[in-house]
């Protein structure tokens, strides 16, 4: 119950932040503008709209996840609002989980708004929406899984570092996570056993965001394979659980001078 109370409070705090509205507005603008970009070449209007539209949802969702995620805990520590909350019958684990769920809810709402904007643009271009267009919701689902993992990362860094450094670390890990397959390939091809081992360890330890990117797939009217649905969902659940466990562990030991 306290987790839910903190989550709802975090959600309400997040939606009052002006940066959120600016980002969502920008995303909707870009989605709208992708209709114009489609006119560059005949026959690819829909592909461009879908690619640009879903990428906008992903990128702006990422920015929201980072900008608000990095402040989740560090702002409360900096402003000392945390002292008051932790003196209440609130366990530290409840606080961390509540913060995470609150931001997740914020992302869910904002992604939903951007998705509605995307479908609006699609309807404008195609003049209709059919059952085939539901496949894009699969891409949105995977974007949400990605963002849930990014929020987890931001939360961990927020527990130990300043907002600026948390943003840098989170963003860097997101970028690395999109190229983790290359990391594994490098490890397999290197002649050094040590480098190979390190690369392999990093491949498994760092988040793998590449498999969540199905935008190209759905833009070319291909269906998302069943193994990706199951595999990505389990992977995200497992990784988020690990991140939350790490965040809780750090937060439980943290002193607030």
């Amino acid at each position, binding site marked *: *119950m*306290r987790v839910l*109370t*903190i989550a709802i*409070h975090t959600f309400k*705090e997040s939606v*009052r932040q002006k940066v959120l509205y600016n980002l969502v507005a920008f995303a909707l603008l870009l989605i709208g503008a992708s209709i114009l970009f489609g006119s560059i070449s005949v026959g690819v209007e829909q592909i461009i709209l879908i690619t640009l539209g879903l990428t906008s949802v992903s990128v702006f969702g990422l920015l929201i996840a980072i900008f608000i995620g990095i402040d989740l805990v560090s702002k409360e520590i900096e*402003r*000392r*609002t945390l*002292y*008051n*909350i*932790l*003196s*209440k*019958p*609130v*366990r530290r684990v409840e606080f961390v989980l509540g913060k995470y769920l609150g931001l997740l809810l914020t992302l869910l709402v904002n992604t939903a708004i951007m998705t509605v904007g995307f479908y609006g643009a699609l309807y404008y271009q195609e003049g209709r929406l059919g059952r085939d267009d539901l496949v894009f919701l699969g891409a949105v689902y995977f974007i949400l899984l990605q963002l849930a993992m990014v929020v987890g990362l931001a939360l961990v860094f927020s527990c130990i570092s300043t907002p600026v450094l948390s943003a840098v670390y989170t963003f860097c890990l997101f970028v690395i996570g999109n190229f983790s397959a290359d990391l594994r390939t490098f490890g397999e091809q290197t002649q050094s056993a040590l480098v190979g081992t390190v690369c392999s360890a990093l491949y498994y330890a760092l988040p793998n965001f590449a498999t969540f990117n199905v935008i190209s797939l759905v833009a070319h009217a291909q269906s998302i394979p069943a193994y990706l649905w199951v595999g990505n969902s389990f992977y995200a659940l497992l990784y988020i659980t690990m991140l939350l466990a790490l965040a809780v562990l750090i937060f439980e030991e943290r*002193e*607030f*001078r």
Partner: protein
Amino acid sequence: MLALETTDLTKDYRLGFWRNRVKRALEGLNLSVEAGEVFGLLGPNGAGKTTTLKLIFRLIFPTSGTVRIFGKPLDDHSVRSRVSYLPENPAFYDHLSAQEFLNYVASLFGLPAAERRRRSGELIDQLGLSASRNVQLRKYSKGMIQRLGIAQALINDPDLVFLDEPMSGLDPLGRREVREVILRLKERKKTVFFSTHILSDAETLCDRVAVLNHGRLQGCGELTAILRLGVTATELVLEAPSAEVTAALVPYASSMIRTGERVRLEIAEESKVERSLEIILQRKAKLISMNPVKRSLEDYFLQKVGAEEVEKSGRSADL
């Protein structure tokens, strides 16, 4: 039953890049607070008062020692719902209004919605925030924030209230309101533990006090006992005494001050007081008043803190 008990509570901070320097912020603190009393933790800035409160609420962790509240550790959540805390210079969510904030805090205690509304409304009125109940906290003055802090500390009707510098930032009217709040809590047999460096507040409100300095307990005791033991002299005030009378009293008085027509004498020893009274009666001088000169809490505080400073300077001189 003891509302609060600390046993050998010690806190060391590790400083430096390699965390190899140790700074002892609190050393072997043994405190006990009875249920229903108002207890004052006194000390100069940096004495360890806030460190003590943070250790009690596990915002920081003790190097050694224990804290028990109503016989249980604070990890026990049944205890947490019976206590509350007002931090020093509190900070709250500035995007919320007072009503929203108190509602949020009350919901963390699991209070039902109707109860939350009732209690937050009562406390807002009681602490003079009615006109600003729906104003965002970012527009509140320091004094208003402090009052709201007290309101949130009372929202769960706690049995034990911890207040860290509750008068901080308040004007005289606000300070009086807070004093009345504390006295009302005392009437309702609640326990109040507050830290302050304003001794007049402690003298007015506390049943018992403890003095902390440089992380060590310098003294602890009942206020009435501390002040009673401190009867240092007797004051006699005479109206227009003759030169002969004043000359006769000079040998017995440790100080003699003339203000207009009145002369005030301070006499340290009781035997000398008796002899002085005989002189006054024999010479038919006019005695206006006779009162004991009591040591104030400030005197007690300075004695305890000063003793520590003398000991420290002595040790550093030896070095």
